[in-house]
């Protein structure tokens, strides 16, 4: 577990001298060259100013970048990348830095291309259901922008109020509503990309099927290792005419997860089914997003269905009926938009709210077939007992994507190590149950070793071979996503 040691402990800032063998540019020359491309006010290079860029939403490991540069156009990105490629300077793209697996963390003294300023909405074409955005454009801003016309952008990661669509593309972000609407890859249709060699390519197609191999599909979820997206065409959708949200409280986790199975078995396809266990509920109840859930509830399901108003009540009636058959303590429907927003706010803020009950937490992201949920939860509970660590669970039950939150105190190195070990064991269990190690947070730095639970040596080599096609010098977010076999 070499890669996960030292939680919350700063590693020494990268000494430029360490890179001397590799880098033919001095730091001064590098900064000068970057300044020549974008101007003095869009390059940060002094070490003290770089500190805040040493990690993303995953804080267990960090490293100082050589510089942070803020491009504003595809051409600038291409020029920067060409410069860096020419001199073999490692680099990586960063959106809002909300990623949970260290995908934007510089460990090789990378130059960070920060997309915070490349954040414009380029165009919206409602008649053809498409929008074109720059990578730094915020996910939720798009939905807000087209809301007045009754449209929305479907992928809704919990970070959507801050996370960028470029970052979403890199991570193939999911969200609560992807049970019905799919994840980022199902909604991104075309992109302009700057490849690690500095060449510009236009991949995917705004409509229909792209000619050639599905490079767009390959780029989504590549964690910025194959190139950098600089313009993204996404599918937008008409908002459903009606939405109904059901909240069900259970005294037993098993009953709650059986409810989920029965809903699916009944041929109902909800937009979302979210699950929170007791500890998670307690944490969020302490935050400003509290709903007023009783303290002794074992599990809560938030089930949402949407569609045409006509016929939706039949569906919710069926759901209420299924909940009642499973010894639900109370089940009710949101009576208005505010109540629905309150429930969702509470659910979406669950990760952050762990700060309310624990100094630190590790969030895992394993995914299992839905039918194995109950078993996975039981085994997580057992591991929690064995390790003597509290584990909260909040997850997308509809699609079997678990989010166990392992609570620990980083001030205690032994406990930290135990938390990391437990997290890894949980992922092993997910893999053993026919699932995978990450459903939506990405591999990044965090789950490199665990990749071996799901891929053998040949499969890893095949992926590295593909990376080499795009990044022959191994400069673009090197060391992330695929471990060396």
């Amino acid at each position, binding site marked *: 577990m070499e890669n996960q040691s030292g939680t919350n402990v*700063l590693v020494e800032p990268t000494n430029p001298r360490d890179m001397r063998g590799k880098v033919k540019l001095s730091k*001064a020359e590098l*900064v*000068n060259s970057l*300044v020549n491309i974008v*101007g*003095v*006010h*869009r*390059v*940060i*290079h*002094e*070490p*003290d*100013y770089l*500190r*805040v*860029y040493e*990690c*993303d*939403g995953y*804080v267990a490991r960090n490293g100082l970048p050589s510089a942070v540069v*803020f491009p504003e156009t595809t051409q600038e990105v291409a020029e920067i990348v060409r410069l860096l490629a020419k001199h073999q300077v490692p680099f990586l793209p960063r959106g*809002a*830095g*909300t990623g949970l697996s260290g995908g934007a963390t510089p460990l090789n003294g990378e130059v960070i291309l*920060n997309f*915070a*300023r490349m*954040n414009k909405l380029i165009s919206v074409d409602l008649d053809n259901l498409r929008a074109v955005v720059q990578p730094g454009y*915020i996910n939720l*801003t798009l939905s807000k922008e087209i809301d007045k016309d009754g449209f929305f952008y479907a992928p809704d990661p919990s*970070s959507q*109020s*801050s*996370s960028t669509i470029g970052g979403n593309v890199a991570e193939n972000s999911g969200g609560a509503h992807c049970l019905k609407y799919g994840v980022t890859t199902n909604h991104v249709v075309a992109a302009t990309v700057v490849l690690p060699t500095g060449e510009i390519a236009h991949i995917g197609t705004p409509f229909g099927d792209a000619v050639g191999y599905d490079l767009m599909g390959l780029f989504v979820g590549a964690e910025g290792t194959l190139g950098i997206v600089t313009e993204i065409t996404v599918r937008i959708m008409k908002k459903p005419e009606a939405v109904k949200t059901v909240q069900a409280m259970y005294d037993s986790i098993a009953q709650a997860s059986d409810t989920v199975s029965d809903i699916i078995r009944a041929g109902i396809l909800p937009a979302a089914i979210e699950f929170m266990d007791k500890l998670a509920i307690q944490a*969020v109840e*302490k*935050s*400003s*997003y509290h709903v007023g859930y009783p303290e002794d509830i074992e599990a809560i399901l938030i089930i949402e269905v949407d569609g045409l108003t006509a016929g939706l009540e039949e569906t919710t009636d069926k759901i209420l009926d299924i909940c009642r058959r499973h010894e639900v303590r109370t089940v009710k429907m949101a009576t208005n938009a505010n109540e629905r927003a309150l429930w969702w706010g509470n659910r979406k*803020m*669950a*990760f*952050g*709210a*762990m*700060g*309310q009950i624990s*100094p*630190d*937490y590790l969030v895992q992201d394993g995914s299992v077939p839905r039918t194995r949920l109950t078993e996975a939860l039981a085994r997580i509970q057992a591991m929690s007992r064995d390790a003597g660590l509290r584990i909260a669970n909040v997850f997308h039950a509809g699609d079997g994507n678990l989010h166990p939150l392992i609570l620990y105190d980083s001030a205690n190195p032994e406990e930290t190590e135990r938390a990391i070990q437990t997290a890894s064991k949980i992922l092993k269990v997910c893999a053993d149950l026919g699932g995978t190690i990450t459903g939506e947070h990405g591999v990044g730095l965090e789950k490199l070793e665990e990749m071996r639970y799901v891929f053998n040596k040949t499969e890893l080599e095949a992926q590295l071979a593909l990376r080499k096609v795009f990044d022959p010098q191994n400069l673009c977010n090197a060391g992330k996503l695929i471990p060396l076999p």
Partner: protein
Amino acid sequence: MPKLSEMAKVVTMSPVDRGIYSNSTSDVLGFHWADAPEAEKYSVCVHCGLCLETCPTYQELRDENQSPRGRVYLIKEVSEGRLPLNEVVVSSIFTCLDCRNCDSVCPSGVKVGNLIEEARGQIYASMRAKELKPEMTQVAHSGTALERFFERKIFPHPKRLQTLGKLLRFYQHSGLRWIARNNNFLHQPIKSMESILPDVPKMGALESLPHHIPAQGEEKATVALFTGCVMDIFFAHINEATARVAVRNGLTVVVPKEQICCGALQTAAGDREQAREMAKRNIEVFMASQVDYIVVNAAGCGAAMKEYPELFKDDPVLLAQAKSFSERVRDISELLVEVGFEPPKGTVERTITYHDSCHLYHAQRVRSQPREILKAIPGLKVVDMPNSERCCGSGGIYNVTHPEMGLRLGDRKVNDIPDGVDGVAMGNPGCMLQISAGIHRRGIDVDVLHTVELLDEAYQKERND
């Protein structure tokens, strides 16, 4: 949109203009004065980044050093001795508007605003001890000398404040104003602010109101009115309206004559020692009046007074008193809804919008009450303002210390005022001045109003109807 070159002047995102390879680290390590940012406050941050897009300075500058997450990270680094108290820290901490927008959205409940104020306290103390290089002071505030003069010499002294008010009145009504305006004595941002300063009334409400005003009808509770400084110099009529509205709703109003400025500006500037002195005085004065509530109509003051306990963490006795004081502090809209206000019968025929002052919406979480009051006024049409909770750039005296950022945020706020309204209501005098200036620059015909003014007008009209 301002040009990038202009933007970077506001906050030196990268200090390359001072020579690319300069490294201006200072030797001061850590926050070593009393009352430092506490580990239990900054360690709550899980680095999720959900605060980023709510931060006005991040929205404008797009640099993580100028975001709540970045600021908390820097505070943590300095606190734990990994980063000296240097330029990036000072610039980051002092560019914060202390608007508390991040406090509102933080799922972990990090009190960013309080951390910033504590960090400012440390920087202020280091500056006073001449530990920091002089240019660091420039980074912290551009108008330091003048500002400190106000913070130390004027605001803490009610008599001097009243005198200042009188001087201002003299300035406005004599030929002095004309001379100043026509001779480019004033810098542009100050100028635009100066040009819209309301006429200063002859006398503040602290002077004009009687000490004791009995409730109309059955007494529901007793309240002590906090009159504030900016409010009482420029908007004494709002203090009077506040008293009338309170009395009308069964509240007996006491006006403690020994009260002084709340100290919010001092806390924001990092002068916690001075702020503590002022808080002590107010606690003493108001607790002596033995009222049920302390009612405030200025959001900034209300927030500061509700947070007095933050200033006395190291003194259990004063801490207990501060807590007992703070528990009684209410914004006027909050109190009216809490005790139940009588819907007015008089009509106010106009269309307005409502701006959420940061220190009401984020710091005090008073959100629905002002709207409830406005909705209760017959004839008044309230149109929603987009992004109503985004900071207007006033930030206490931020618009004076960081004029360019203040201007940009002010213009953004005025652009958000919906078409077709003739007034914009709010609950904070700083916002009122700032938005008035923006409206003046834009040249539109919109009145800037306090929520209580409208309610008072509706009650007044009852008699006429």
